[in-house]
C-alpha cells in the first residue's frame, strides 16, 4: 500500500508499528502451496469438456449436458454493459482443470488426504478436522467456549478435497457433498434441479461454467429439516493460469432451513486469473436459505497487476409459497467483480433479501448488485447495498426490481449508499425499476457522500489516528449489512473492511 512506503513514514514513528501495519495491510492469503498438480491441456475445446467429465467419472447425460452448453457458449458474446474495463480474456490461454496429484485416487476419508492440502486450509484458518470451530473464525477470543459446528466442503482449484461432518449431517437426512459426488450418488436430484434456476444459456459466463465446471458443493435439505449446523464451502485457487469454475446447487425442500457460508482466497500472482462460478438455490414451500459470502480473492496489486476476474452468476428461485432467501455478501477482493445475486420470487408471500458491502481500493473494479423479480402475490424484497470506493477504484451498484402484473400487494425497499474516499475513485448507481401493477409499492433511495469530516474529527479528537477513524466510520456505514451476517463471518468481515481500506487515507 502506497501510504505505508518507507519513504513516507514520519520520523519518530515506532518501526515495529510500521511493520505491524504493513503486515496487515498486505493481502494475507497471497502465498501459494507448492504441490504437484495435474493439468488438463491448455485451452478449451470439446475434448477438454469431455476430459473434465471423464475425470469426474460422470455419466453420459452429464457429458452431453456439458457439450450442449459448450456449443451454446461458442455462439455467445461476452457482455460489455458493466462499468468494468479489463484487457480481453484469451479463453484459450487458460487451464480449465487442475487437481493435486494426490487426489488422483479420491481419498476415502480426511485421514487419507495429502497433509500438504490440509495444511493449506489450516493456514487459511479453515481446519478440515471434525472439531468444534469457535464462533468468529479469527479474533474472537471472547467467544463462548462451547463453540458451534460448521461443516466444510473444501475446493482446491478444480476438485473438492473433502467434506467434513458428512456422517452427522446424514443422520439428519441432509446431503452435503461435492457436486461431482452428487452427480454420481444422487443423479435424480441433480438432473431435476441443475440448470433449472440458471439455464445453461443464461449468460456468457454461466454457459461457460455449465460446460467446464469441475467441482463445487451440493446441498439437499429434506422436508421439515432444520440443518443442524452451518454449511460452508471454502474455495482456494492455487495453480497458475487456471480458471476456477465451480458450481453450487442448494435445494431446500418444504419447510427446511439452512445457512450456507462461502469463502474464497487465491495466491498473489502477476497474471489475472478467471473465476466464473454459478450458484443455484431452490427454496420450496416455507423453506429458508441464508447464503453468506465473504469474497476475498486476490485483488491485484496497487497498480492493477494480477488479481482475480470474478464473473459470477448467483440466483435463487423462491418456488414455494412463503419461502425466503437471503443473500449477504462482503466483496473486498478480486480485481474485477461482475456479480448479481438474484431472487425470483415466484411463490406467493415469498421473500428475498440482499445485503451487500462492496469495497474497492487501488485499481479494483466492482459492478455488483441484485435482481428482485416479483412474480407471486404479497412478495417482499429488501435491498441494502453499501459501496465503498478508495484509491483509483470504480464501484457500481447495478440492480433490477421488477413487479409483474400478477405480483399484487408486493413490496420492495432499496437503499444503496456509496462512500468515496479520495478524489481519484468513482461510485455509481444504476438501478432499474419496473412496476407493472399498482397494489405494489417500490421505494428506492440512494446517496453518495464522502466520509463525514465531523465524524472523523470526533474520532481524531479522542486520540484515534486517521486510518482507525476512517475504519470506524466505515464500519458504522456498513453496520446494516454486517448485522445480517452470521457470527462466523461478522468478525472476519469487520476486519476485512478495515484491512481493505488501509492506505487509502491521505
Amino acid at each position, binding site marked *: 500500500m502506497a501510504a505505508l512506503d518507507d519513504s513516507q513514514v514520519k520520523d519518530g514513528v515506532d518501526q515495529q508499528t510500521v511493520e505491524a501495519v504493513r503486515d496487515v495491510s498486505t493481502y494475507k492469503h497471497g502465498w501459494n502451496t507448492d504441490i504437484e498438480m495435474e493439468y488438463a491441456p491448455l485451452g478449451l475445446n470439446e475434448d477438454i469438456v469431455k476430459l473434465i467429465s471423464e475425470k469426474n467419472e460422470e455419466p453420459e447425460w452429464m457429458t452431453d449436458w456439458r457439450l450442449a452448453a459448450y456449443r451454446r457458449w461458442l455462439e455467445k458474446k461476452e457482455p460489455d*454493459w458493466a462499468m468494468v474495463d479489463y484487457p480481453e480474456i484469451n479463453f484459450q490461454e487458460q487451464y480449465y482443470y487442475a487437481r493435486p496429484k494426490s487426489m488422483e485416487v479420491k481419498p476415502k476419508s480426511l485421514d487419507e488426504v495429502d497433509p500438504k492440502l490440509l495444511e493449506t486450509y489450516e493456514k487459511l484458518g479453515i481446519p478440515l478436522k471434525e472439531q468444534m470451530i469457535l464462533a468468529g473464525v479469527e479474533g474472537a477470543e471472547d467467544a463462548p467456549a462451547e463453540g458451534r459446528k460448521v461443516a466444510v466442503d473444501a475446493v482446491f482449484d478444480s476438485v473438492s478435497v473433502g467434506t467434513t461432518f458428512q456422517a452427522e449431517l446424514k443422520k439428519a437426512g441432509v446431503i452435503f457433498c461435492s457436486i461431482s459426488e452428487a452427480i454420481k450418488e444422487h443423479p435424480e436430484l441433480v438432473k431435476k434441479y441443475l440448470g433449472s434456476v440458471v439455464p445453461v444459456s443464461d449468460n456468457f459466463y454461466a454457459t461457460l461454467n455449465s460446460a467446464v465446471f469441475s467441482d463445487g458443493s451440493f446441498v439437499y435439505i429434506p422436508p421439515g429439516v432444520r440443518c443442524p449446523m452451518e454449511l460452508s464451502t471454502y474455495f482456494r485457487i492455487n495453480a497458475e493460469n487456471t480458471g476456477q469454475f465451480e458450481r453450487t446447487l442448494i435445494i431446500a425442500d418444504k419447510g427446511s432451513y439452512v445457512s450456507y457460508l462461502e469463502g474464497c482466497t487465491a495466491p498473489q500472482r502477476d497474471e489475472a486469473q478467471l473465476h466464473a462460478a454459478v450458484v443455484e438455490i431452490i427454496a420450496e414451500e416455507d423453506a429458508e436459505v441464508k447464503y453468506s459470502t465473504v469474497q476475498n480473492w486476490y485483488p491485484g496489486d496497487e497498480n492493477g497487476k494480477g488479481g482475480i476476474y470474478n464473473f459470477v452468476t448467483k440466483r435463487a428461485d423462491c418456488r414455494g409459497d412463503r419461502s425466503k432467501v437471503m443473500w449477504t455478501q462482503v466483496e473486498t477482493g478480486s480485481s474485477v467483480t461482475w456479480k448479481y445475486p438474484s431472487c425470483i420470487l415466484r411463490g406467493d408471500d415469498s421473500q428475498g433479501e440482499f445485503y451487500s458491502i462492496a469495497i474497492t481500493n487501488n485499481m479494483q473494479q466492482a459492478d455488483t448488485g441484485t435482481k428482485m423479480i416479483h412474480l407471486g402475490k404479497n412478495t417482499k424484497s429488501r435491498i441494502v447495498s453499501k459501496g465503498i470506493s478508495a484509491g483509483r477504484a470504480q464501484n457500481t451498484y447495478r440492480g433490477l426490481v421488477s413487479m409483474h*402484473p400478477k405480483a*399484487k400487494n408486493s413490496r420492495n425497499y432499496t437503499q444503496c449508499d*456509496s462512500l*468515496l*474516499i*479520495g*478524489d*481519484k*475513485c*468513482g*461510485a*455509481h*448507481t*444504476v*438501478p*432499474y*425499476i*419496473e*412496476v*407493472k*401493477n*399498482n*397494489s*405494489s*409499492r*417500490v*421505494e*428506492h*433511495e*440512494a*446517496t*453518495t*457522500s*464522502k466520509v463525514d469530516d465531523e465524524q472523523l474529527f470526533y474520532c481524531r479528537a479522542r486520540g484515534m489516528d486517521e486510518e482507525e477513524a476512517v475504519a470506524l466510520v466505515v464500519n458504522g456505514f456498513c453496520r446494516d449489512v454486517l448485522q445480517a451476517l452470521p457470527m462466523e463471518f461478522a468478525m472476519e468481515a469487520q476486519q476485512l473492511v478495515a484491512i481493505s481500506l488501509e492506505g487509502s487515507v491521505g
Partner: protein
Amino acid sequence: MALPDVKQNATQARLAAMEMPQSGVWAKAAREDAVSRLISMGLPHRRDEYWKFTRPDTLVQPEGPQAALYDTSDEPEMFGAVDRLKIVFVDGVFDAEQSDDLALEGVTIDRLSEAGRADIHWAKDLYGLLEQRGQTPVARPLATLNTAMAGDGLLIHVTGKAPKPLHLIYQHRATTSDAMLHHVIKLEKDAELTLLESGPVAARFNTVLETEIADGATLHHVRKQGRHHECHVATHVFARLGEESSFKSFTLTANGVMTRNEMVIELTGDDAIAHVAGAAMGDGDFHQDDTVFITHDAERCESRQVFKKVLRNGATGVFQGKILVEPGAQKTDGYQISQALLLDGDSQFLAKPELEIYADDVACSHGSTSGAIDEDALFYLRARGVPHGLATDLLTIAFLAEAVDEVEDEILRADILDRLEGWLARRRG
C-alpha cells in the same frame, strides 16, 4: 463497430424519404456533418439500452403516423394571463399572421429558414454543436436527424433582460403533419429570458432546443405538451451553463401516445444551477418518457430533477435520469426524485435513476417510488364527506404539486394547476 443491418436499413430508409432543406447556407456544413454522424450511429432501435422502456418505431419509420384533431377551443388559452410575445407554428410551419412582430428589446429573433442568405450568422457557432456534445456517452440520433433536416426554428439571441416572455405556440391542423423544428438560444452574460412553449404540435414532431447560457445568465423554460392524444413527439433540450448561470425548466404533459423528452444539461461554470421538473398525467395508451442527463463539470454547482407521473387505465410512464459528476467537480449538490402514482392495476412505471460519480466531496442523492393512492389519506377525506372521485383528485393534485412548485412564477404556476384540475375534471365527467 459496424452497425447492425436493421439499424442501417432503417436509417437509410428514413434519410431517403427526406430532403435536406436548402435554406441556411451557414448551417450547411453542420447539416452535412449530422447526416454522416447519423449514418454511423444509426437511428434508435428498441434493443438500444436507453430505448428499452420506449419503443422508438413510430419516431423512426419513414412514414409518420396520423393523428386525429381534437377540439380544444372551449379551453382557455394557455399562458393567456401573461403579457408575452407570441410566435405561432402551424404543423411546424411559421404562421406570420397569428404571430406578433418578432421584435423585443434586448432580444433578436431570426428564423432558421430565413437566416440563411449569407454564410455568416451568430448561430453558426452553436447550431448542431451542443447536440453533438450531447451524444456521449449516450447517442441521441433523433436529435442528429433533426440537426440535419429541421425545416425551421428560431434563432434567439438575448443580450439583456427580456421585458416579457417569448411564447412559442404549436398548432396541429393536419392529421398527417410531420415536422422538425430546431431552435438555438444564446444568452449573453447576465441576460435573462423566459421561454414558454405550448400546443399539440404536429402528428409527428421532432424538436431540438440548443441553448448556451453564459455566466450569470438565466433561462426559465415552461412548456405544456399533449392534448392531441395521437401525436408522436420527441423533444430534445441541450443546455450548456456558464458560471453562476441558471436554467430552470418545467414540462407539463397531458395525454399523448408517445412523448419522449430528452434533456442534456452540462454545468461547465462554477456555481451554476439547473433545475428540471416534469408533471405528467395520462391514461389508456398514454406513453411518456423523460430521459434526463445532467453533467457536473465545475465546482459548487447544484442540480435538481423532480419528476412526477400519474398513470391510469394501462398508461406507461418512463423515467431515465442520470447525475454525472466529473472528476474535480467538488462540492456538487445533486438531487433527483422520480415518482409515479398508479391509479389502477394496469398502468406501469419504468425507471432507471442513475448516479455516476468521480469526485469525493459531493452530496448526491436520488429516490424513486411507485405505488397506489394512499388509502389512509383517502379514508381521511371520505370520512369528512368528500366524495371518492374528488378525494382522489385532491390527492392526485397534491402528489403532482411538488413538481409544479418548481415553477417560480405564480401566474404560470396557477395556470398549470388549472390545467391539471381541468384534466382531472374531464376524466371524472
